[in-house]
């Protein structure tokens, strides 16, 4: 099954990780990051890719938000991170550890 934890709520303590059944990589020709899964692929915008890069199974959501706010001091990323991770989780791109 794609996600046994589909109903799990996203909190700042959750540790997201790119699902082992998916692959996240940079594509030179497309000039973007992509997430790949059986017979399909989604091209990712820069901000989505920046979030996924931090979904390494070690950082919790709070840490990811903190790191991105440090990296982009002009942006308040809190809500964007939460929103993106909810979508990514629903699509099975990330698992909550």
């Amino acid at each position, binding site marked *: 099954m794609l996600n046994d934890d589909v109903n799990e709520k996203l909190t700042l303590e959750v540790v997201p990780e790119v699902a082992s*059944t998916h*692959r996240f990589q940079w*594509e030179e*020709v*497309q000039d973007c990051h992509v997430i790949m899964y*059986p*017979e*399909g*692929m989604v091209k990712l915008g820069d901000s989505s890719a920046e979030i996924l890069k931090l979904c390494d199974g070690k950082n919790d959501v709070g840490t990811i938000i903190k790191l991105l706010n440090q990296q982009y001091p002009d942006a308040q990323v809190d809500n964007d991170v939460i929103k993106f991770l909810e979508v990514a989780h629903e699509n*099975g791109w990330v698992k909550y550890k």
Partner: protein
Amino acid sequence: MKTDGSSTNKVNPPLWLLAELTYACPLQCPYCSNPVEMANYKKELSTEDWIRVMREARKMGAVQLGFSGGEPLTRPDLEELIAEARQLGFYTNLITSGIGMDEKRVKGFKEAGLDHIQVSFQASSADLNNFIAGTDAFEHKLEMARAVKKHGYPMVLCFVLHRQNEPYVREILDLAVSLDADYVELATTQYYGWAFHNKEYLIPTREQLANAEIVTKEFQEKLKGKMKIFYVIPDYFEDRPKKCMDGWGAIFLTITPDGLALPCHAARQLPGLELPSVQDHSIDWIWNDSPDFNKFRGLDWMKEPCRTCPEKEKDLGGCRCQAFMLTGDATNADPVCSKSPHHQELVDTVEGIGKIAGTPELEERPILFRNMKNSRKIIKGESESELVK
């Protein structure tokens, strides 16, 4: 966009490389999309050829790679090809019947870097599955599906639907749940190759489709977020065509076992194609400059009713192969479209089959099983009533 093959046109790179490694297959499914003349094409590309094809396609930007066939497991170099593909950065999909695989090989593929295995089933019960497959495959398929999960692959189960198994969609989805599938493809039979010959045996009835749709929706809702179920109504029952392959030469590149490059796996039959071989040309030339890949790119090739149709960019006139098979001219509108002058013939065929479905008159007609013996008979022009299983 021009259609004269000029290399100055900007053509998007291929995203999908379908490597049909072989036409050999231990199964005999009568809905197979391989060409019925497959016995003529027995010389397969070498390992080195395939590696060169993969390198060139990857360099151009191809991301998804499907190992298909026939049955790709019959190639003893499959592990080597997987390892090379993964090293090149492809997302690698193995599209298989499961026959020719054991748990050791499932594990070996994982070590070689295989990303995903799609296992096909012919039905939810051993009897029907084995009848359609022409061999006792069901138990082994179950075993292989479990092995695929055990070794951590995402698992897609594929069921090709037609009149003989369409009534059992509930049982099929129950089976998928019990095997813990991540994705289920309820694939509609596409009437190419062997399937076209067997269409009277395969075309479902409207009642079957309506029921299958209800059952599928029920499971989709019940399993939301757990199992993805893909189900598309067969286009013979629609009044607008599919945007076939997302467009001719748009994202999809098929290489046949003997090395021909095709914009879709059914295009080999179309008259007027030059069928460039990867043994003579680079993938770059084939994709960007070959007359074949430019033949139906864009909109300029269209005739009426497509040419002036406001929906022409949406469906690109449908499927070229279907247009050819059903009207004799690949530049015609796909007769699935109600604007096609040939649409009524298609409706009549489908309704005619619906009227006599289930009666011996229809159900006892001979089935053309997919095997090399039958292929050779077709090539020789022998009558279909003599065809053997």
